[in-house]
């Protein structure tokens, strides 16, 4: 077991999920960032090399997706609905501050989401760490990946 870190934030939306972290340093808009979703939602990949250098080529399916916030436009929710139907949605979402579009997709798709934490999740959490998201309590428990 690696070291544990607890982050406490605002009460989130949804209940509980745990899984491996994928940490993205850029704000996300699924319309602009995941080009191959239009061919196969089940294989959704970050394809925008210029806008998304920290996660380029990676997939968020079954991950705990950590990212600063959402970005414009507004179509991330309708795209995520198709991704979720294809079984490729993230297990939970952790933000510095949640954009309303992501709060709303979290409500409808029942994907737990937490934000306003006492530490910056994009700095504290690294890709590959094990993350437990308790949205009801607003707590994120991070088990650091052993090097």
């Amino acid at each position: 077991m690696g070291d544990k870190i607890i982050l406490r934030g605002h009460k989130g939306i949804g209940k509980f999920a745990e899984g491996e972290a994928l940490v993205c340093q850029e704000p996300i808009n699924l319309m602009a960032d995941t080009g191959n979703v239009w061919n196969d939602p089940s294989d959704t990949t970050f394809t925008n090399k210029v806008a998304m250098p920290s996660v380029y080529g990676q997939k968020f399916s079954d991950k705990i997706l950590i990212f600063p916030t959402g970005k414009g436009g507004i179509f991330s929710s309708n795209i995520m609905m198709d991704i979720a139907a294809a079984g490729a949605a993230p297990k939970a979402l952790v933000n510095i501050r949640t954009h309303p579009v992501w709060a709303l997709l979290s409500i409808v798709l029942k994907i737990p989401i937490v934000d306003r934490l006492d530490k910056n999740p994009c700095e504290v959490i690294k890709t590959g760490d094990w993350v437990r998201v308790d949205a009801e309590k607003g707590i994120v428990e991070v088990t650091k990946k052993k090097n």
Partner: protein
Amino acid sequence: MELTKNEEKMLAGDYGEGYKKPMEILVQLGEFYDAKRLVPISMCYLTKGPTPTTPGKALEWVEDLANSGVTFKCPTFVSTDFGKRVNDHEFKINKKLGAIPAYQGGGHPRNPFYLPVFGQQIIGDGTAVTHYMNSYIGARANTECFIGGYSAAIVGKTPEYGFRLHENRLGKTLFEVQVDLKDETDWSALGYYISLKLANNYWDVPVINGIKINDVTNDELVTFSSSVPSYGAVVHSLLVGISPEALTLKQAFDGGKPKQTFVVGAKELNEIYERFSPVVEKPDMISIGAFGVIPSIDMVIKFANLLEGKKVTNDFPTVVLLDGPIKMVADTMGLTDKLKKAGVQIGMSEFIKERGLDPKKHYDNPVTKAKKIGLKNIVFVDAKACHYTGNQGVNSILKHIEECAQIAITGRMEV
């Protein structure tokens, strides 16, 4: 969140399941953002947007609402099929809910027919509309996507948080513009620059100072509105002297000081042109307008005049997106004919069909299918368009309209 007795009844299902579902969504949203209450909304601009599958789960969600017997409780405008991009089935569902057709109403504020007035709480999606209504009308809106938008339109209310509150509408960051913005392309570059700087903190309302009021056109403000939320999510800014909540710099900050100041000179603006610069001499397409970017009539006039008596190259397509009122004006002025005569394609249908896609599917466009149809280098006049096609691995190139005309005629650009 405190609810009125009537709102509590709606939440409990006393008015039926159709009203209960959107009310539950609004209450969850409000509690997440610490809203104290729901506030009535005066009007809604809704847009669902494209989905990867057909009809898509989002449309099924809207259809379920429509079939539950609910109707919109305030004037609600949706994009129509004027441009043949929104399918009939979707429009029928919206009509059942009581929607009023609008020209690209939900997606882009280019010549909107229906406008709110200062201080009104509205739903104003997409992001370009949200920004335009917040910043230049002084109406109040967050960006809440189709889920929040439909829910609010059905209930007639929305949670009071974010840009609906006076304190969150005040200036937080200052952008001192020290470069002349010569056209809409420069305005789009300025928007994109601000968007990049506030990418992870879009709520830090930018105040833009240094613009001469008489030099600004409404079309430029629309273009800026389209670009400034494209990388980040800025949907409210204050343009000193123009925004009704920022007639002076002092008013913009309510007497306070900016937490951060950025100077935007020629060097900074040029960073955006360099970010979207050519890597090959011959592009695969020139597109005046793009997904979510409707060219202004001024842009169309300029392009038609630049190409008058000339022919564009056959090496690649040059496309101008004309739709709704802009197309009507362009047709009336003879601009459409002039452009066609020069070899320009009007709208994307011809091109899409040539590449084996279905022009009736509104997700069949270069933003979503560029890779599939072999577009690797596209020239645009707008930074937002450049940004979006990055998802297809496209090298997007940002050029002024005069440069676009030159590239269209010669078939080549300087690398």
